């Protein structure tokens, strides 16, 4: 499960993956909406990893 946390690094740190104009979404070039899409995707991935772990003792 921890490997999921590497996906945002792979998806975002190599600019040639998303340095395109098309496909345009709501008028936004792919370059912009692709990066913004990683915000909710990363939250989801962190949540999945968090859920898979046993809970810490609170204090």
């Amino acid at each position, binding site marked *: 499960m*921890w490997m999921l946390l590497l996906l*945002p690094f792979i998806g*975002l740190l190599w600019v040639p993956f998303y340095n395109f104009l098309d496909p345009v979404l709501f008028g936004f070039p792919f*370059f912009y909406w692709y*990066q913004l899409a990683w*915000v909710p995707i990363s939250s989801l991935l*962190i949540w999945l*990893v968090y859920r898979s772990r046993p809970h*810490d003792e609170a204090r």
Partner: protein
Amino acid sequence: MTDRIEWVALSVFIFFFALVTVMGFFAARWKSGPVSDNLDEWGLGGRQFGTWITWFLVGGDFYTAYTVIAVPALVYAVGAYGFFALPYTIIVYPFVFAVMPLLWKVAHANGHVTAADVVHGTYGSRGLELAVAITGMVATMPYIALQLVGMGAVIKAVGLWGSCRSSRLSSFSRSIPIARACARRR
């Protein structure tokens, strides 16, 4: 950017400034401990911050004058280059999620306050501790400078230039000492 006083913006600015100041004084009484006795009280709020308060603290750390003034200005000026800010903000979260709980456990178990304390406690090296502490301070300097520039931009945006640049001083701004000084000099 205007050189007139923006009343709506200035009122909102003063309202929140006063609100946060008053909240700060109330918060100082809330769950207060012996501040002068140990660094935990001063630096970590007595280790009493739970998830809710920490969430706001992280938000306050992240979304600053840099985020709301400097990055949009950079994107406006140079376009897509300014978008470096978005990927790095996104990848910080999985990194912090993986690393910080480990750091927290060590710090919590041994009563460490700063990152340098953790390094000294774990590796027992004064030199390494010093290197981490100095790196932390030096690395913070440009960021602090950036925040000050950002705050300056915000204050100018509400019409307070703090200099004689304004050529159309209103009757109110002439009543502010610095504006009066400007008017006299002209």
